[in-house]
C-alpha cells in the first residue's frame, strides 16, 4: 500500500512537494517542532465570518495528529493580533510560551474562473513553562521558516485544485462520449448513470422518466456509490401538482425548478428537450452528507441538456426499432423479426428435442373485402385479427404478419393437437367478430380464416420444410372450401389415400 503523507521529492522547506494537504501539514509541523525545540505545534484555519480558529492538525510529543476544535482567540491577545496584523506575535502565560505565525494567501481558481480561493490561518508554536520563551530573533526565524513552508502549502492546495480540475476535464470529455453514443434504452440509461457516478461520485443517482400516456413520473434506474445499478421501476409518482415533491419539480411548481438544491446535498435536475420536460435526474450525497461542490453543480447543469438529449435519443431509437420490427396496424411482429425468432426457436426445439408447431393462417376473401368495402374496412379486419391473436397466445408464442393477410404463429413446445385447439379458438372468435360497415346493407361484416398447421419433428426436420408443410396444409384448406383447419399430417394421409385409390385427386401437390 502506498504510504499517505509521504514526501515525494525534497524535505527542504520551500522546495518540497507533498502529496496533498495532510502530508504537508504533518511535515511542516514536525519539521518546525524539531527545528525550534518545541513541545507542540498546531495548524489553525481562520474563518473570518465567525471569527473562529479551526484546529486542523497538531504535533506534540513526537506524534502528529489531526484534530477538530473550534475556538475563538481572546480579543487583544497575541493570537488575535497576529490575525489582525498578519505579523508574528508571541505570548507567555502559566501554560507556557507561544508564538503565533499567521498566513494569508489567495490563489486563483486553476479552472480559469474569476474566483479567488482564500487561505487564512495561523500556526501556533508552543513551549512548556519550563523552557525558554521565544526571543525576537527566534520569532523572526521561525516565522520566516514557516512562511517558506507555506509556499509549499500554497503549491499543495493549488495542486489539489488542479487535480480536481483535471478530473473534471476528463469527465467532460468522457461523459460527452458516453452521452453521444448512448442509443439503446436498456444500455444507455445504465451508461449514463454509471458515467455520472464514475466522474462525480455521488452517493446516489436516480433517473425518473415521464410517462405522458399515464401522466406519471416513473422510476427507471438508481446507481449507488459503489456503482451498483438497480431498477426503481416500482416507483411511480402521479404527475399532479402537490402529489409529490418530484412531481412539483417536474411540473415547474417548485422554487428554482431547473436546479433545486436541497440542503447542499441533493440536486434535482428536470430534463428537458426542446422545452418539453421528459424526466428528472436526482443526485444526492445524503448518506455521506458531503456538500456537492458548486463546480460539480455547474458542470452537471451544463451536462443537463446533453443527458436529456441522450435519454430522449435512446427512447427514440427504441421507438424506431419497434416500428421497424412491428406492424403498426396489427401490432404483430413483421416478417424480418419473425425470421430471426423462427431460427432461434427452431434451434431450441432441435437442441432440447421439444415439439414446435407452426400455424399459417389466411383471412378468407380478404382481397374481396378490400375491393368491396375499401381499404379502411380491410385495415379494420386486420387490426381486429391482430388484437384477437395477441389476446389468445401464451407468452412464449410468437405471431407475425407474414405479408398481406397472411399470418404465421410459432408455438414452441406445442404439439399438433395443441396447435389445432388454439387454431379452433382463433377461428371461432374471428367468426364471432362483427366488423361494422356503416354504408352496407348488412351494417356489418363477418370474416373467416383458413388455417394450415405443421409440426416439428413430426412433419418436417428443417425450418424451410416446416414452413412449406404448413403452407401445403393451408393450400389444402383453401382448395377445399376455406374457413377450416388442417394439420399437415392429416393432409398427407388424405393425399396418400387418394394416391392409393389411384384417383386423380390433385388436392395436395
Amino acid at each position, binding site marked *: *500500500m*502506498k*504510504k*499517505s*503523507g509521504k514526501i515525494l521529492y525534497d524535505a527542504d522547506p520551500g522546495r518540497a512537494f507533498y502529496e496533498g494537504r*495532510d502530508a504537508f501539514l*504533518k511535515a511542516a509541523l514536525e519539521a518546525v517542532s524539531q527545528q525550534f525545540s518545541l513541545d507542540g505545534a498546531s495548524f489553525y484555519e481562520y474563518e473570518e465570518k*465567525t471569527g*473562529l*480558529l479551526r484546529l486542523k492538525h497538531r504535533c*506534540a*510529543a*513526537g*506524534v*502528529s*495528529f*489531526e*484534530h*477538530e*476544535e*473550534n*475556538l*475563538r*482567540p*481572546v*480579543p487583544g*491577545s497575541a*493570537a488575535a493580533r497576529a490575525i489582525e496584523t498578519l505579523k508574528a506575535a508571541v*505570548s507567555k*502565560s*502559566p*501554560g507556557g510560551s507561544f508564538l503565533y505565525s499567521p498566513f494569508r494567501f489567495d490563489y486563483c481558481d486553476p479552472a480559469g474562473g474569476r474566483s479567488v480561493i482564500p487561505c487564512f490561518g495561523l500556526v501556533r508554536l508552543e513551549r512548556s513553562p519550563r523552557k525558554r520563551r521565544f526571543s525576537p530573533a527566534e520569532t523572526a526565524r521561525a516565522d520566516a521558516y514557516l512562511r517558506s513552508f507555506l509556499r509549499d502549502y500554497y503549491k499543495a492546495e493549488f495542486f489539489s485544485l488542479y487535480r480536481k480540475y483535471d478530473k473534471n476535464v476528463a469527465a467532460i470529455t468522457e461523459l460527452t462520449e458516453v452521452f453521444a453514443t448512448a442509443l439503446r434504452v436498456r444500455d444507455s440509461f445504465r451508461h449514463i448513470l454509471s458515467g455520472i457516478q464514475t466522474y462525480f*461520485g455521488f*452517493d*446516489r443517482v436516480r433517473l425518473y422518466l415521464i410517462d405522458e400516456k399515464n401522466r406519471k413520473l416513473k422510476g427507471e434506474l438508481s446507481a449507488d*456509490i*459503489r456503482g451498483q445499478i438497480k431498477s426503481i421501476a416500482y416507483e411511480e409518482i402521479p404527475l399532479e401538482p402537490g402529489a409529490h415533491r418530484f412531481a412539483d419539480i417536474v411540473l415547474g411548481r417548485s422554487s428554482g425548478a431547473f436546479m433545486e438544491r436541497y*440542503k447542499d446535498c441533493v440536486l434535482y435536475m428536470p430534463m428537458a428537450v426542446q422545452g418539453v420536460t421528459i424526466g428528472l435526474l436526482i443526485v444526492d450525497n*445524503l*448518506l*455521506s*452528507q*458531503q456538500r456537492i461542490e458548486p463546480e460539480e453543480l455547474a458542470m452537471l447543469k451544463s451536462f443537463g441538456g446533453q443527458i436529456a438529449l441522450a435519454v430522449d435519443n435512446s427512447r427514440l431509437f427504441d421507438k424506431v426499432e419497434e416500428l421497424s420490427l412491428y406492424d403498426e396496424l396489427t401490432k404483430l411482429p413483421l416478417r424480418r423479426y419473425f425470421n430471426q425468432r423462427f431460427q432461434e426457436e427452431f434451434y431450441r426445439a432441435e437442441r432440447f428435442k421439444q415439439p414446435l408447431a407452426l400455424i399459417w393462417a389466411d383471412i378468407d376473401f380478404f382481397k374481396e373485402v378490400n375491393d368491396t368495402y375499401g381499404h379502411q374496412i380491410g385495415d379494420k379486419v386486420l387490426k381486429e385479427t391482430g388484437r384477437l391473436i395477441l389476446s389468445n397466445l401464451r407468452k412464449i408464442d410468437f405471431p407475425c404478419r407474414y405479408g398481406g393477410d397472411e399470418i404465421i404463429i410459432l408455438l414452441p413446445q406445442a404439439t399438433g393437437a395443441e396447435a389445432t385447439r388454439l387454431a379452433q379458438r382463433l377461428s371461432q372468435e374471428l367468426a364471432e367478430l362483427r366488423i361494422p360497415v356503416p354504408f352496407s346493407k348488412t351494417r356489418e361484416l363477418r370474416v373467416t380464416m383458413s388455417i394450415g398447421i405443421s409440426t416439428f419433428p413430426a412433419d418436417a426436420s428443417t425450418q424451410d420444410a416446416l414452413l412449406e408443410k404448413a403452407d401445403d396444409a393451408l393450400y389444402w384448406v383453401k382448395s377445399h372450401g376455406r374457413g377450416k383447419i388442417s394439420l399437415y399430417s392429416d393432409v398427407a394421409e388424405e393425399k396418400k389415400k387418394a394416391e392409393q385409390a389411384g384417383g386423380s385427386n390433385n388436392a395436395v401437390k
Partner: protein
Amino acid sequence: MIIWLLSDYDHRKHLAFKSLLTRFSAAFPSAQAEFSVKSRHSLWESLFAHLRDPKRNPLADIIEIPQNWTELFSKLGLLADISSKIEALAQRRYPEFILKELCHEDARAFSAPWWLEAPALFYRAQALKGAVSDPETELASWEGFRAALDRVGAGARRGNFRALSVPGSSGSVSVADVLPRVWGRRGGLFSDDFNRATFTREETAGGIEDWLELAVSGKIELFSPDRFENGPRTPEECAFMISSRKIQGSGRIGLKMLPYPGYPSGGGLMLVYNLAVSASSRVPDEAQAFVSWAMEPRNVAPFTESFGVFPCLKPVFEEHLRDERESDVYRRLFSAPELKPNIMVYPTAELLLERALWNLSLKIARRDYEREDLTRELIMAQGEADYLLSLY
C-alpha cells in the same frame, strides 16, 4: 501496513498507541506498520473518498471506528469479515451489551470492539462546600445537578475557577455532548423499531435543550477563548467535570465520581470504539494478526489504562472494574449499559444533528438564540433523517 487511528482530545491515547506499535514491531520485526491519526470528520471523508475513487484514495489496512459505523461501512463493502480471524471475536469474549450491537443479520462481524468509555460526573467535594450537602442524593437528578451548578457558580466566581468543565468539548455543542443527556431522558434519534426519526420527540429535544441551556446560561463556554489561550481547565480549577474518562490523580485532588446526572441507578450510554480491517487491504493476514495481537490482555490493558478508558475484552474489562478506585460507581454505570444503535443511517443522522447543533452553537455564541431555533433545526434534521430512512 497502515493504521488509521481516531483522533482524541487526550493526546495520551496517541502516545499509547505509538508505544503499542513499537512493541508490535519489536515482537514482529518483519511487519512494517505505521499509523496516522485522523479526526472523525476526516476519517468519514476518507472512507467515502475511497468509495468514490478507490485507486486515488486507498484505505488503511486497519481502521479504528466508532462501533456504530460498522453496519454502514460493512454494507458499503469497505470492511472485511473478521469474525473467524480474531480469536476474541470467534470466542465472543466481550460483554453481552457489546456483542448485542456487534452484528445484526448473521454471526459475521466486521469490527472488533477495542475500548469503551462511560460518561460520568466528577466533583470536588471541597468546591461544593456550602452548596451541596449530600452529593450522592442531590446530584442524582439533572435538576439537582443543575441547581447545584447555580449555587456553586454564584458563590465562587474567582480567578480561573469554573463551576463546570467538559474536557472532551470541541468548542461547540456536539452530539457527543448531548447524547448522554438525551439517553438520560429516555430519548433517542430513532424510534425503537427504527421506522422514523425522533429528533423532535419531547425526550430527545428536551435532552438536547438541557445541554444547550448550560451554554446559554454560561455554565459552559462555547468556542472558549480561555481554552485557546490556556488549554483545558485542570480538575483543581473546577467544581464539576463531565467526562467519560477516568481522571488521573483524582484521589490526590479530592475528585469524586458519580453516575451521569439523571441516571441515579446507573446505566446509560456507553461509547465503544472498534478496530476493523479494510476489505481492500493488501496485507489482510498481517492486519488481522495485528488486531488479534492488540486485543490480547497484556496489550489492551496498558493501552486503555494510559488514557483512562476501559478495554472491551471481557476478562480484562472485569479485572479493570475490580481494581478501579471508584468501582462501586462504575459497577452502577455498567449495570444497564446501552450502546448507540448500529444501523446503517445512524452515523449520518448524527451528522445531521451535529450540523443542527453547530448552527445553534453559533447562535448561542452570538447571543441571538431562541427556543424556536432549536425546534426549527430539529424539525429540519428530523425530516432529512426520515428521508434517509426511506432510502436506506
